[in-house]
């Protein structure tokens, strides 16, 4: 989503990057994470989390698996947006900054896919 005015876009004024879209996405994912994170911790606290069977039964239910996949995906996206701002603020050298940003993105995408795949394996009953 672009919050830039059509005139500003045509004239090519201001930053050439997606600052407002980044800002907006950070907040939309924040709202989603208030709900998803609250759900996750509350559910975990109400469960016998020491029991593998209880965790699998919980994560295997249709609603929980969808919410867990959303939680992992949205958390990774929100973390990437937030870490990007921190890195851009404190890492001055351009080359290092790009390298760190790419490394963070790789790690978070790999982590998100691993987590989502784990939830799907539980949901579909694919046990190792």
């Amino acid at each position, binding site marked *: 989503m672009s919050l830039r005015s059509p005139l500003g876009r045509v004239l090519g004024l201001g930053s050439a990057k997606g600052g407002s879209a980044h800002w907006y996405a950070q907040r939309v994912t*924040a709202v989603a994470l208030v709900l998803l994170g609250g759900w996750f911790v509350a559910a975990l606290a109400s469960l016998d989390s020491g029991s593998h069977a209880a965790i699998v039964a919980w994560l295997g239910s249709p609603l929980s698996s969808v919410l867990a996949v959303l939680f992992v995906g949205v958390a990774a996206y929100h973390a990437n947006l937030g870490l990007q701002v921190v890195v851009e603020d404190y890492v001055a050298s351009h080359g290092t900054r790009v390298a760190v940003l790419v490394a963070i993105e790789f790690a978070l995408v790999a982590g998100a896919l691993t987590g989502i795949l*784990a939830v799907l394996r539980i949901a579909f009953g694919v*046990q190792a």
Partner: protein
Amino acid sequence: MAQPERPLSPFLHYRWQYTNTLSILHRITGVLLAGCFFLLVYWLAAAAAGPERYAGALRCLGSPLMQVVLCGGLASFCFHLLNGVRHLFFDLGRGFELATARRSGWAVAIGAIVLALLAWTILKSHLGGVA
């Protein structure tokens, strides 16, 4: 010729106070939570890998060092969640009055501690025999 008075960068003359403390804590806890994200992934992957791997993961997470990490992670989560909501209200242009911002700041700080202690006690009670 006398050197003209130049404006200083904010960090050179701003007094340390509750507002920037909460703000920098939001950033620090955010970075910590990004690290904790990988612990969540590890826990999910262990649950998907079967009962034995899950029990092994709980033993690993139950080690004294990991307990400190998890306790810090939970506290970070509670603070980042509550202060994040506070910032969302700021983004809507609300709560900027000094008295309101101070009250919401204290509410966030105390609320985060209470919430973290409560969640930690409950979560630990389930794991009493395991981790």
